């Protein structure tokens, strides 16, 4: 009885499982639901609101004008498709380089080289988002390094264009693909390679029939990052894209001028990301992240 008297809180919590769970979950849920989800819901509700054509003030209403504007204007559709295309290209290019890099690191490199490459891939992750965009600007600007270096061979760089946006986003998110792919290749049991070789498979056959199928979960996990991070980005488009517009650019540009349109358009990347996440969730790859 003495312990009950001296440690009332502990005893109470120990006795009630519900109270314990409640005391853990209340704060996080109040924050995430009360602040974040409520803000998101409110933003999406704005999509149905009315903009006064004279004062450009937004007033609560229930109308579909913003959605009609989105559907009737060809520019919004092409921006969505362009952004989707950029995000998919970034994902494919990242995977195309991550797989050979991972095979080299896991199977060919010496232990020293492997450790060096592991750090070399991770380091740029910490270098900062804008630092890397600046690096791409310095490289591809009109009178910059790329044009000056390759100009000797008669090659001129992409300048600030959609190609540079793809390159920049790949530059930003490549490590998120490379690391899981490398880890997955390292985790493949060595005897699978032995068995494949004993059965007479050459290197490429082993890679195609043994390694690649086992890489699927890692590729999916990596693609969640490369895809959704590219899809939502608009700073790269603004700083190295020339006139390239992405979904984010449209949202950012409209939020003050026409909030309902911005809010309605925000649904597009949310839909893309949710569909992509649900699609990948079925494969079970996310459990390993």
């Amino acid at each position, binding site marked *: 009885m003495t312990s009950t008297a001296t440690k009332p809180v*502990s005893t109470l919590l120990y006795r009630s499982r519900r109270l*314990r*769970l409640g005391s*853990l*979950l209340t*704060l*996080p849920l109040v*924050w*995430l639901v009360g*602040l*974040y989800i409520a803000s*998101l819901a*409110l*933003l999406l509700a*704005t999509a149905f609101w009315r903009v006064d054509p004279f004062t450009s003030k*937004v007033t609560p209403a229930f109308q579909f004008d913003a959605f009609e504007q989105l559907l009737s204007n060809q520019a919004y559709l092409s921006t969505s498709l362009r952004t989707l295309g950029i995000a998919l290209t970034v994902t494919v290019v990242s995977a195309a380089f991550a797989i*050979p*890099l991972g095979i*080299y690191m896991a*199977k*060919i490199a010496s232990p020293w080289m492997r450790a060096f*490459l592991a*750090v*070399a891939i*991770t*380091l*740029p992750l*910490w*270098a*900062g*988002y*804008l*630092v*890397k*965009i*600046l*690096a791409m*600007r*310095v*490289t591809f*600007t009109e*009178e910059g*390094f790329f044009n000056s270096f390759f100009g000797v061979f008669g090659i001129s760089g992409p300048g600030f264009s959609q190609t540079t946006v793809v390159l920049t986003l790949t*530059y930003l998110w490549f490590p998120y693909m*490379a690391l899981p792919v490398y880890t997955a290749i390292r985790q493949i049991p060595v005897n699978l*390679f032995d068995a494949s*070789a004993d059965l007479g498979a050459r290197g*490429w056959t082993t*890679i195609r029939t043994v390694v690649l199928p086992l890489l699927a979960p890692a590729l999916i996990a990596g693609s969640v990052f490369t895809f*959704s991070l590219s*899809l*939502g980005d608009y*700073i790269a488009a603004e*700083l190295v894209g020339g006139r390239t517009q992405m979904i*984010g650019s449209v*949202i950012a540009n409209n*939020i003050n001028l026409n909030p309902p349109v911005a809010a309605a358009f*925000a649904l597009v*990347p949310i839909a893309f*990301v949710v569909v992509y996440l649900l699609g990948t969730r079925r494969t079970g790859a996310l459990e390993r992240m």
Partner: protein
Amino acid sequence: MLRLTRGARIALGAVVGIVLVFMYVPLMLVIVNSFNAARIPSWPIEEFSLRWWEAAFANQALWTAVGNSVIVGLGAMVIALLLGTLSAFALQRFEFFGKQTVNLLIVLPIALPGVVTGVAFSNTYNNVLEPIGIQLGYFGMIVAHATFCIVMVFNNVFARLRRMSPSMQEASMDLGASLWQTFRLVTFPQFRTAFVAGALLAFALSFDELVVTIFTAPAGVDTLPLWIFNQMSRPNEATQVNVIATVLILLSFIPVYVSQRLTRAQEDER
């Protein structure tokens, strides 16, 4: 063993070479360009000088921005540590209805594009809280940052809790320790490295965040990324940006070193 022909090995090595060149040459160019006397990053560099370094270190606005970034990062980190650890314990130690949904809620702020998160918060601040007289101002930025930092702490602590056996805590409670004593003396030391790793990641994530800051920073307040972004948006004044970028590249060695140490410490603890 994986049997590869000589040609295949060379081809794979070449890909690694291309990746390294693509990753590091642009960063080197930034470093070299911080010593470029010219106003635009032209190549080849004709005249080297330290003038942008001197200008950057004398720039009061830049230092204020750095200070703001540190304050916001620390604030977001503390909130994320509290909320991330609480939710990690809830989701690891309990089975309950809606567990998957809570998990999704924690991941959502980082899974959704920053522009959506930023616009959502600014909409709430400007159109809901301000009209009823609540001015979050500076704190609003910290709130927004903390929201997407929770997942960093959560992931690290959750993963560690999964590997910890609850029997130590049960033993501690059986021996008469209170919940708080048990947490402080038994549980916390077991997940301390994961806690620190989560804190580091949360701070780094906040320190580097631009998009959410664009929409939630009060007027006239710059964080470091915001300051860099504003400079970069005016192409001919971006000279000091190379300097601060060089410093950031050099600073990025610290977290890599710390994370290597933490990994080793974690292996020792096991």
